[in-house]
C-alpha cells in the first residue's frame, strides 16, 4: 500500500510538471469548444430575440432571457464540467481497472485513446472515399464500436508482447508503457502527419435549446450520455457476469484464484484489452469537438491519473465521482482564475486532499482493509 501511495504521489508531481510545462492542453482543448458553445448560445439567443422584438432595440439585451445571467452562467459551467468530467471518467475507468488487477500503471493509456480517435478518423475517410455521400452521416455508428475494438486489440497485443513479462515489477512496467506510448505516437505521426480532423455527422452538430439563452451542444450531450452508458456497462460487467467474478477474484488474490481454476493469464489479457478499449471509445469522441494530433492523449492522461488517485486506486465509484468532481471544479474555477491558474488551484486542492485522505475518496474499511 505504501508503494501505491508513493506512486500516487509521484504521479501528482508528474502531473504538476506537465501542466506547468504546457499550460493544460486538456483545458485549452476544451476551452475553444466551450467558447464555441457560448458563441452558439449568444448567436442563437440573438437570432431568437431579434425577430421577436423587432422594433424595440432594448430587447436585444440579455436580460430578456428566461433566467438571470448568473444562473445561466452556472448552468453553462455545470454542463461544461459534466462533459469535461465525462471524458476523464471514461479514461480513468480503464486505468483504474488495469491498475487494480495487474498493478500496472499504464502510461500509454492516453495513446490508446489516440488510437481510438484515429480509428474514427479512418472510418470517416473511408466512408467519404468508398460510400455514397448519403451514407456519410452513419459513419460514426461504425466508428464508435470499431474504436473500442481496435484500441482494445492493440492493448491485448501490447499486454501479450510486453507487459505480461513484467508483472510484479512496477518500475519496469512504468518504463515499458512509456516506451509503448512513444512508439504509438511516432507511428501515428508517420501515418497521419501532425494535425487532422473530421466532420462530425450532422446529427451531432448544433445544439439543443433548453430555455431561451441556454443551448447545450449536441456533441457534448452525446459525450455525457455515452459516459453514463459506459459506466453502467462496466458496473454490470464487473458485478454481474461470470467474467466479472473471475476478474474480481483475480484482483483480490491472484494465486488462490488460479488454484481454483481461474485462467489468470487470460483474465489479464482480456482486462487490459477492455481497459484500453474504453480509452479508445473516449478517443472516438474527442474529434467531435477538437482536432486530432498524435500527442492528444498525453494531455488527457495526466488529468485521468489525477482522477484515479483522488478516487482511490481500483475503485469504480471513486473514478466516477472524482472524474465528475474534477470536471466541475475546473470549470467553476476557470471563470475566476483563468485556465492556467484554475488548473494550478485544482492541483493544489488535490495535494491538500491527499494529505487528508491518502487512499482516495473511498478507502476500504474494516477487517478486509488490512489484507
Amino acid at each position, binding site marked *: 500500500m505504501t508503494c501505491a501511495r508513493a506512486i500516487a504521489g509521484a504521479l501528482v508531481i508528474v502531473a504538476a510538471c506537465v501542466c506547468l510545462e504546457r499550460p493544460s492542453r486538456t483545458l485549452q482543448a476544451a476551452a475553444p469548444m466551450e467558447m464555441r458553445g457560448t458563441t452558439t448560445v449568444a448567436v442563437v439567443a440573438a437570432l431568437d430575440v431579434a425577430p421577436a422584438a423587432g422594433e424595440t432595440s432594448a430587447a436585444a439585451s440579455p436580460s430578456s432571457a428566461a433566467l438571470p445571467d448568473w444562473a445561466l452562467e452556472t448552468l453553462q459551467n455545470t454542463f461544461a464540467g459534466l462533459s469535461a468530467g465525462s471524458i476523464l471518467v471514461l479514461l480513468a475507468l480503464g486505468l483504474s481497472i488495469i491498475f487494480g488487477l495487474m498493478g500496472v500503471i499504464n502510461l500509454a493509456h492516453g495513446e490508446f485513446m489516440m488510437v481510438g480517435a484515429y480509428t474514427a478518423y479512418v472510418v470517416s475517410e473511408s466512408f467519404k472515399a468508398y460510400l455514397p455521400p448519403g451514407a456519410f452521416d452513419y459513419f460514426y455508428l461504425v466508428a464508435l464500436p470499431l474504436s473500442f475494438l481496435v484500441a482494445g486489440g492493440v492493448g491485448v497485443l501490447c499486454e501479450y508482447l510486453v507487459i505480461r513479462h513484467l508483472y510484479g515489477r512496477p518500475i519496469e512496467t512504468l518504463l515499458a508503457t512509456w516506451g509503448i506510448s512513444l512508439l504509438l505516437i511516432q507511428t501515428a505521426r508517420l501515418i497521419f502527419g501532425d494535425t487532422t480532423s473530421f466532420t462530425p455527422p450532422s446529427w451531432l452538430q448544433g445544439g439543443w435549446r433548453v430555455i431561451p439563452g441556454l443551448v447545450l451542444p449536441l456533441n457534448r450531450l452525446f459525450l455525457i450520455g455515452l459516459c453514463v452508458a459506459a459506466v453502467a456497462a462496466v458496473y454490470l460487467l464487473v458485478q454481474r457476469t461470470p467474467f466479472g467474478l473471475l476478474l474480481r477474484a483475480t484482483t483480490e488474490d491472484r494465486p*488462490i*484464484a*488460479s*488454484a*481454483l*481454476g*481461474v485462467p489468470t493469464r487470460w483474465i489479464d489479457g482480456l482486462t487490459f484489452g477492455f481497459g484500453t478499449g474504453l480509452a479508445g471509445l473516449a478517443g472516438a469522441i474527442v474529434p467531435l469537438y477538437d482536432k486530432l494530433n498524435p500527442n492528444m492523449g498525453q494531455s488527457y492522461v495526466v488529468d485521468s491519473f489525477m482522477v484515479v488517485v483522488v478516487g482511490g486506486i481500483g475503485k469504480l465509484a471513486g473514478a466516477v465521482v472524482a472524474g465528475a468532481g474534477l470536471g466541475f471544479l475546473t470549470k467553476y474555477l476557470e471563470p475566476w482564475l483563468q485556465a492556467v491558474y484554475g488548473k494550478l488551484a485544482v492541483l493544489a486542492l488535490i495535494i491538500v486532499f491527499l494529505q487528508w485522505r491518502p487512499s482516495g475518496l473511498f478507502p*476500504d474499511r474494516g477487517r478486509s482493509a488490512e*489484507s
Partner: protein
Amino acid sequence: MLTIQNLSFSYGVIQVLDDITMVVPTGRITCILGRNGVGKTTLLMNVMGLLRPTIGAVLMGEHDLTDLAADRRSALGLGLVPQGRRIFPRLTVIENLRVALAARRQPTDRIPDDIYDLFPVLKTMSHRRGGDLSGGQQQQLAIARALVADPQVLLLDEPTEGIQPNVIQHIGTVLRHLVDERGLTIVMVEQYLDFVKEIGDRFFLMDRRRVVAEGLTSDLSADLVHRHLTV
C-alpha cells in the same frame, strides 16, 4: 495416485526442499508433519503449481503436472485449502463459492446442495462478505470453496490453525466423511498432533528440508515426536 518425485526447491540461493519423494495413497488422509520452517507449506505450493520446483516432478495418475500452471492442475482434479484460509475478502460467501464454477464455464452457476449439507453455517451467511466472517467460518468456506471444483485430491494447509475446538471437530468429521464415503484423497499439513492421530491415516515427517520418516499415524512413536516435533 499423487506422486512427488525427487523434488527440490530453492528461494534464490536458499534451499527449502531437498530431494522430497512421497507416494500419496488414494482415498486416504495423508498428513505432513514437521516444525515451523521445515518446508511443508512450500511443498504444498509446489504440488499445486504456485511455485515451480528447481528439479523433480509431480505426477497425478497418468498426468505429469510439473510444467502445468495451477489453473490447469485444478482442472485435472487438484484442490487447495491454503494456509490462513485466503478467502476473497470483498466477495460475498456465495461469490467465493462460485469462482470455481465460473472458471469452468459451467452452464449452471448453482452451488451443489451437498456443500451446504456439509457446512450449514455457509447457507445463513451467503450474502455476507468473506472478509467479515469469523476465522472458523472462513475455514469452512475455504474448504467448501475448494470442494465446489470437485477435486480428486485436496491439499489442506493447517486447517485447524486458530480455530475453536468444536469447529475443528466438525471439520475433522467432514474430512473423514469425504474420504470414506466419496473416495477423496487428502494431503494435509498439520501441527496439531491429536487431530492428526484422530483423523489421519498415514504421515510423512519432515525435518530440515527432507522427509525423515513415514508410516501409519497409529504408529507415530513418542521417540519420533520427541526428536522431530517437540521444540
